[in-house]
């Protein structure tokens, strides 16, 4: 019996690995067959990444992108979550602001680039502002929805035990809304990561997004282009996994009953 479980687990790991391997193999073959293509094969990409690491640029670009995401995302979280919770708590304010949110939401953060350059010039601050913008609305909406999903039963129990408004918010609302907030944070972090890359392609001179656009413009270094994409994918995946491990913390697990 133990053997069976072991093999099931092995298969669970082997399958994804082999499918990735198959894809990389197919990629290599496609390149080999199309020898005058600008697009490089996986080996060339790997070499390109190593080259960047040796020049110290890899770490520099990764740190730049992460730096912008961190500041923009955290800044948005610190402001948006209390704001959203308040909006969800006072129904009238939600009614008032909802149409505004609905109009702002479909506007790509990148459309704010001219205005953010106007206000912050070209540079890090503008990029951080874009990330902030990209995170603010989704987090506000998440917090608003989280309030709505807090069970009335819990709130009534709190009132029954004589809690004041402030205590109610701190001791019932926040903990009850926490699981949903964490999920929202994870999703918004993913969005921030997408936006930082895009922002760096347009508005700044460092970071992984800049690497991609610059590697092409400055010399058709498509090995670095794809290398950059691979790094973006990897780091985005790691960020996501980190956030998911937060969801596994015991005191939050109560909400994820499946």
């Amino acid at each position, binding site marked *: *019996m*133990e053997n*069976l*479980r072991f093999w099931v687990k092995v298969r669970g790991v082997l399958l994804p690995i082999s499918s990735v391997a198959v894809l990389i193999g197919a990629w290599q073959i496609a390149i080999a067959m199309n020898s005058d293509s600008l697009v490089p094969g996986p080996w060339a990409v790997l070499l390109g990444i190593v080259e960047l690491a040796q020049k110290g640029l890899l770490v520099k670009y990764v740190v730049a992108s992460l730096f912008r995401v961190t500041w923009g995302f955290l800044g948005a979280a610190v402001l948006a979550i209390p704001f959203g919770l308040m909006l969800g708590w006072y129904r009238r304010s939600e009614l008032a602001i909802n149409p505004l949110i609905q109009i702002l939401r479909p506007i790509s953060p990148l459309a704010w680039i001219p205005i953010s350059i106007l206000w912050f010039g070209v540079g890090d601050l503008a990029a951080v502002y874009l990330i902030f913008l990209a995170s603010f609305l989704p987090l506000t909406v998440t917090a608003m929805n989280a309030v709505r999903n807090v069970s009335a039963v819990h709130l009534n129990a709190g009132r029954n035990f004589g809690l004041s408004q402030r205590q109610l918010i701190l001791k019932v609302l926040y903990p009850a809304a926490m699981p949903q907030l964490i999920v929202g944070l994870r999703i918004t972090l993913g969005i921030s990561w997408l936006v930082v890359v895009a922002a760096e392609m347009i508005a700044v001179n460092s970071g992984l997004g800049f690497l991609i656009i610059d590697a092409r413009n400055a010399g058709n270094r498509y090995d670095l282009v794809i290398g950059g994409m691979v790094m973006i994918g990897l780091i985005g995946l790691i960020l996501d996994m980190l956030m998911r491990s937060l969801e596994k913390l015991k005191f939050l697990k109560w909400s994820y009953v499946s």
Partner: protein
Amino acid sequence: MAQRGGAVVERAVKTKLSLRGVNMVFRRDGNEVNVLENIALDAREGEFVCILGPSGCGKSTLLNIVGGFIKATSGQVLIDDEPVAGPDPRRIFVFQERGVFPWLTVEGNIDFGLHKLDKAERQRSIRHYIKLVGLEGFEKAYPQELSGGMKQRLEVARALAVNPDMLFLDEPFGALDSITRLTMRGELLRIWEAEKKTILFVTHDIEESVQLADRVVVMSARPATIRRHVVIDIPHPRDISSPRYLELRDSIFEEIGLAHTV
């Protein structure tokens, strides 16, 4: 007249369903769970058989085996002298009202199994069964607009529309309130008497089993075996205060080992 063990053949009516030596073992995480042990059971054509047992004892598993959704670990399941190979339109399973398809109207649900008939026949069938279960006026309604009892009736209508030989019901009234349940039992009996199907009805409710069945098969807790068959020889409609009813019901109480007072 209650008898112990084995199958009871009282009248010379054809045996519809026959189980012999049925065992069910589930393997989970390397452990073996013995759910059913040595089940032997018969049902005659047109008989209403209740399978009674506590929750989780395996009676739903038994029904799933008979319905062809699970294969028994060992043993023989014969319907019309043929081994059961898989789900079959001749034997329709009625789940709790959750089994109704929410994307179809009442008509659409009843029509679901009728794809082999031509249009006129389908219309006739649908009208007949809507009338039979008492859902007139709700033909175009969607299940989310119906009450629990109505959804249950819809599911029975859908099952009957394909004219199956047997109906398997797995605690169908479990999600309904007790008042609706009483009404639904009457409905089911009325339909059974009109359509004369062989019915296998799983429940954990002793009263329900005595009110409905020709024969009650009392099962033990897991690993489930058949403790006893209790033949209910009261003709319908049954008076639930009559001495014979109480006598039969109490015998089941005793069999299970329940006290008389709360």
